[in-house]
């Protein structure tokens, strides 16, 4: 996994609540057996005027000019502002894969759906939960000034606004370590292989029917 430490990045606003993973990456792209290449189909139904198909070259497709990420001022955005319950619905990890492939590294919103939140951390994407009032201010600043950027520091757990205000955020220490170092959790878990084996043996004795 790509480590994440610090980022000064352009911000784009996704100003709607309950954005589900079907919207982030529609089902037809789930037929792929790869982990990469989903960026061109991020928000496919909102971003394009036609219906995209897997394997199709997206470069010539008609864009929906009203969709936020198609606006010139948000090109190259690496930070996405979101509303409540972003990433709800299907557990598809293709959603963080598509966001990451498109170029996002940080998501900032009042709340994220559980499975999606988890999936982000496995893919070098940092979802940050902030109080609703902080998020509201970020949205209005972002709408007001073109080229709005934020500086995100995972080590220090802070977001710094262009006006100098520093917003602290929480993140689980374990997840933070993994992300800062780009660690693969499987390797970390396997350090406890003896404990897992011992647990399994006890379970096999107590509830043998689970091991039939």
């Amino acid at each position: 996994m790509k480590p994440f430490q610090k980022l000064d990045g352009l911000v784009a606003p996704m100003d709607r609540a309950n954005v589900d993973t079907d919207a982030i990456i529609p089902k037809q792209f789930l037929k792929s057996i790869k982990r990469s290449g989903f960026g061109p189909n991020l928000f496919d139904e909102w971003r394009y005027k036609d219906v995209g198909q897997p394997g199709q070259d997206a470069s010539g497709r008609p864009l929906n000019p009203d969709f936020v990420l198609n606006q010139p001022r948000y090109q190259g955005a690496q930070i996405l502002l979101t509303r409540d319950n972003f990433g709800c619905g299907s557990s598809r990890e293709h959603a963080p894969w598509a966001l990451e492939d498109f170029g996002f590294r940080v998501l900032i919103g009042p709340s994220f759906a559980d499975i999606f939140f988890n999936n982000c951390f496995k893919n070098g994407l940092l979802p940050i939960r902030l109080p609703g009032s902080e998020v509201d201010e970020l949205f209005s600043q972002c709408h007001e000034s073109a080229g709005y950027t934020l500086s995100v520091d995972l080590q220090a757990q802070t977001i710094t606004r262009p006006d100098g205000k520093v917003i602290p955020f929480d993140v689980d220490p374990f997840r933070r370590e993994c992300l800062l170092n780009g660690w693969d959790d499987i390797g970390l878990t396997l350090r406890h292989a003896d404990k897992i084996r011992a647990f399994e043996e006890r379970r096999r004795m107590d509830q043998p029917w689970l091991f039939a």
Partner: protein
Amino acid sequence: MQAQTLYEKLWSSHVVHVEEDGTALIYIDRHLVHEVTSPQAFEGLKLAGRKPWRVNSIVATADHNTPTDHWERGIEDPVSRQQVETLDANIREVGALAYFPFKDQRQGIVHVIGPENGATLPGMTVVCGDSHTSTHGAFACLAHGIGTSEVEHVMATQCLLQKKSKTMLIRVEGELGAGVTAKDVVLAIIGKIGTAGGTGYAMEFGGSAIRSLSMEGRMTICNMAIEAGARAGLVAVDEQTVEYLKDRPFSPSGEQWDKAVAYWKTLHSDEGARFDRVVDLNAAEIQPQVTWGTSPEMVAPVDGHVPDPSLETDPVKREGMERALQYMGLEPRTPIKDILVDKVFIGSCTNSRIEDLRAAAAVARGRRKADSVKAVLVVPGSGVVKRQAEAEGLDQIFLAAGFEWREPGCSMCLAMNADRLEPGERCASTSNRNFEGRQGAGGRTHLVSPAMAAAAAVTGRFADVRALG
């Protein structure tokens, strides 16, 4: 000992290791696998030179991409076919406790085949790369939907990294009215607490109305816990749970059965156990439900109306409602019963079990699909359900009513195969998600119970199934 909730019992009996910040490694008993979210995990495992930790924990099936008619033609879409063949090859290589491939007699939707084969047992931890894994919580299992990286993690280590959830009790007391089903109960719950209401919680469903539901009904409720934001839903073990599991292919037998049952009977929240949040509903007040928007919380009783966004004070909510009504092609204040449907879908892991099909057939019996309805798809959840329904003659009732009787699979729940809505088409669907484009780009989904879906099929509009008699 301190009174414990069911969730706490399940959690503490699976903890292998805890990090300083409370992140725990929990042991996984059952791993359900399907074709869409597993290929990258198998590939990751192979690239790292790792082997599955315990192959016998794996039960696999192909369901999302498989066609529901003309099985003799195989899978015509080459991209779907490749995904299903990739699963075949992966299982052939690594093995599994059981595999129900495309066309197998017991193939079906992953959340239907687990319980019906006794591969989901009380007290287990169950995971699957699919958010509706919450379904299995109906058997007092701790069941989580996981992402593909976690699928790989579980295969490689037999463990999942998890933080302990908060606990919520949803208590539904009283008697459900005639024609009101588990689906209506869970839609009413989501309408009340919202789609993010359960985020961060494990949600236990209790109260006399839940206890009176069959296992099928409890699965319907737990299935949609995820639509309320909860990664896990739970119902305590009782006699019905035990009865359901008796003599299933992977259920224990003989002496083991007695030992298992004795343990299973401890799987309930203790008297006086403390929950972080309790929500109460009165069963008698719940009416048949119909969603009107693009999120399961956008729901109204069948007697109700499409709401008026101009009355909503929260601007983000108001905009969401306006956008939903525009997408759905609906005017504010339209009576639900005035909404006409183009297609009807009866199926999905929410409502494709035998009891669901019986409920739909009871309405369809002796009636005909309305002429204005283009198609009514009835898609059983598994081959086992299909044969049971045929043994009971339900297929003949559906066919006589002009409905289509299909092969099992996910089908038009997410439209990864050929079954889908065309842009602008409106569907009464027994599935679990009414998101934009879920059943086909531009399609409009209204979530309802199987009986309400059948009522819409025969009247051409949302009708109160209680009035059909």
